[in-house]
């Protein structure tokens, strides 16, 4: 199989459009060959995950492209950065880290990108449309774009997203192609109470299980008795993309490529059918908690970044309450969404409760948490999954309302009522 390149692709590869395009195109072509693509396709947008500062190699890559004069060819949003430029000094972020993370932000901003600084670009005005070909990084954004919107992106890593953005092209592989979007494995929900499906913690728990059991096979979920909202689906996707290599799931009667079971499988028979029982979900919920007692130093919310609707829900839950002075309470979101929440009046209530806000980054991507904070609690499966390995901290998972009640009480409490039935 050989890769067909258009005359313009070949010009880009040879350097006729400048050295940055040449570098991006040579990486793109090499990867298209590695993945067995026949051709490249045009994209209408990109989301760059490479903005997260990890170390000098990623910074050198960004600054190399920027110094070569790189500009994006399509509307391109930016993922979280390694730094909250507004509040980093309130936390344990070392100043050298702040300098390096800032340089990486400047490099990607210089490319004509839209500085959204969020891992939830699908909740901005740059949300793509059904059927659009896009090249996105950030695992939770990829799964949301594919599954909930029906836009089309492969599961792209950091540094490849920017190569696609600069050239406006992506390899015609994987989830860009209709035939590769068919369901493979059926997850049948068995007697899951509607009250549980209406809550927020059912979705990350289901997502964690889905990622573990399917790994990289496309799952089709059947048997929902409620119509979940975007925030519930984002929590499901983020969980599945942490425990597995999930880039697309279908939910019958909910997601756009699954009006029916048959449509979700594109007429094929499932390779495997799994009955998802309450026992399975209880086990999955247990796995998300990596703490063995009720000690609590800090509640962390907002992975993926909080939406306006989530700020509203939180404001209602904390109204008139005060958190325990020994517990910190942090919400992470983008600067734009936080501003909206401020205009809507939600922030006053949330801050009166004693919560703090961090924008443009999160606890996983900036070294903000001091050593003395050891015991965390969250309603995010993504935080729950990564905090032990990335931060070396204990973390407990539960619903948003449990997080609020625990912050008030000063220790972890979890309402088991809905999970016991």
């Amino acid at each position, binding site marked *: 199989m050989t890769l067909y390149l258009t005359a313009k692709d070949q010009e880009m590869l040879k350097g006729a459009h400048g050295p940055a395009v040449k570098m991006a195109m040579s990486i793109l072509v090499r990867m298209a060959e590695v993945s067995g693509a026949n051709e490249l396709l045009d994209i209408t947008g990109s989301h760059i*995950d490479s903005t997260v500062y990890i170390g000098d*190699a990623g910074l*050198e890559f960004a600054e190399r492209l920027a110094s070569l004069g790189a500009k994006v060819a399509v509307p391109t949003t930016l993922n979280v950065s390694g730094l909250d430029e507004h509040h980093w000094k309130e936390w344990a972020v070392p100043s050298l880290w702040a300098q390096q993370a800032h340089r990486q932000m400047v490099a990607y901003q210089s490319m004509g990108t839209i500085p959204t600084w969020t891992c939830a670009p699908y909740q901005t005005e740059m949300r793509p449309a059904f059927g659009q070909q896009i090249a996105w990084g950030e695992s939770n954004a990829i799964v949301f774009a594919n599954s909930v919107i029906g836009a089309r992106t492969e599961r*792209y890593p950091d*540094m490849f997203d920017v190569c696609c953005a600069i050239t406006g092209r992506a390899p015609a592989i994987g989830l860009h192609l209709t035939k590769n979007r068919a369901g493979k494995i059926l997850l049948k929900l068995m007697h899951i109470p509607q009250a549980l499906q209406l809550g927020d913690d059912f979705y990350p728990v289901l997502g964690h299980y889905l990622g573990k059991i399917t790994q*990289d096979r496309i799952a089709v979920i059947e048997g929902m008795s409620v119509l979940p909202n975007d925030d519930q689906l984002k929590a499901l996707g983020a969980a599945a993309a942490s425990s*597995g290599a999930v880039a697309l799931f279908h939910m019958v009667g909910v997601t756009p490529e699954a009006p029916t079971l048959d449509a979700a499988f594109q007429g094929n028979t499932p390779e495997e059918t799994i009955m998802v029982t309450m026992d399975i979900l209880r086990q999955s919920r247990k796995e998300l908690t990596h703490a063995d007692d009720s000690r609590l130093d800090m509640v962390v919310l907002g992975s993926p970044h909080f939406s306006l609707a989530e700020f509203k829900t939180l404001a209602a839950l904390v109204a008139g309450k005060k958190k325990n002075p020994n517990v910190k309470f942090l919400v992470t979101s983008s600067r734009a969404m936080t501003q909206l929440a401020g205009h809507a009046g939600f922030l006053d209530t949330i801050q009166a409760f004693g919560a703090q806000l961090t924008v443009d980054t999160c606890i996983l991507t900036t070294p903000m948490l001091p050593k003395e904070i050891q015991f965390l609690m969250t309603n995010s499966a993504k935080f729950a999954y990564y905090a032990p390995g990335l931060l070396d901290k204990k973390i407990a998972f539960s619903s948003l309302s449990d997080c609020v009640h625990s912050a008030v009480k000063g220790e972890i409490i979890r309402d088991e009522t809905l999970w016991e039935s």
Partner: protein
Amino acid sequence: MGKLELSGKPVIPGHANGFALVSREALSFWGGYDWKSGEITDRRHPLSGENAKGKVLVVPFTRGSSTTTAVLLEAIRAGTAPIAIITTATDFFFALASVVAGELYEKSFPLIALSESDFSLLKTGDQIEIVDNGKLIISN
């Protein structure tokens, strides 16, 4: 002591010779690999606590975060990366790390994809020599 020869797909061709670190479970490098030391830090992964620096890492594919490639690139720059990686399918994330390491530092590493049945023959501690065209010579 036995010798075994396997033939895989050279996703990124190259030569390497080292001891294998093997798991049947996929791995995310972000939150799973400390690039400052080479230690595998995903506390839910069977290889948690092992060090992959200088080893031939054998995992079926990457899972999770888009940042796996960036973490592996840091490890390559810092000299704490595996010397080669063996998977069951063409893994885009590992392949990109090798391609970018070649572009920035002329330090690409071989990446070989094996069939699932050949993959299942490999064990931690095997000595694996990667020679031309994705051929592996395994001594145990």
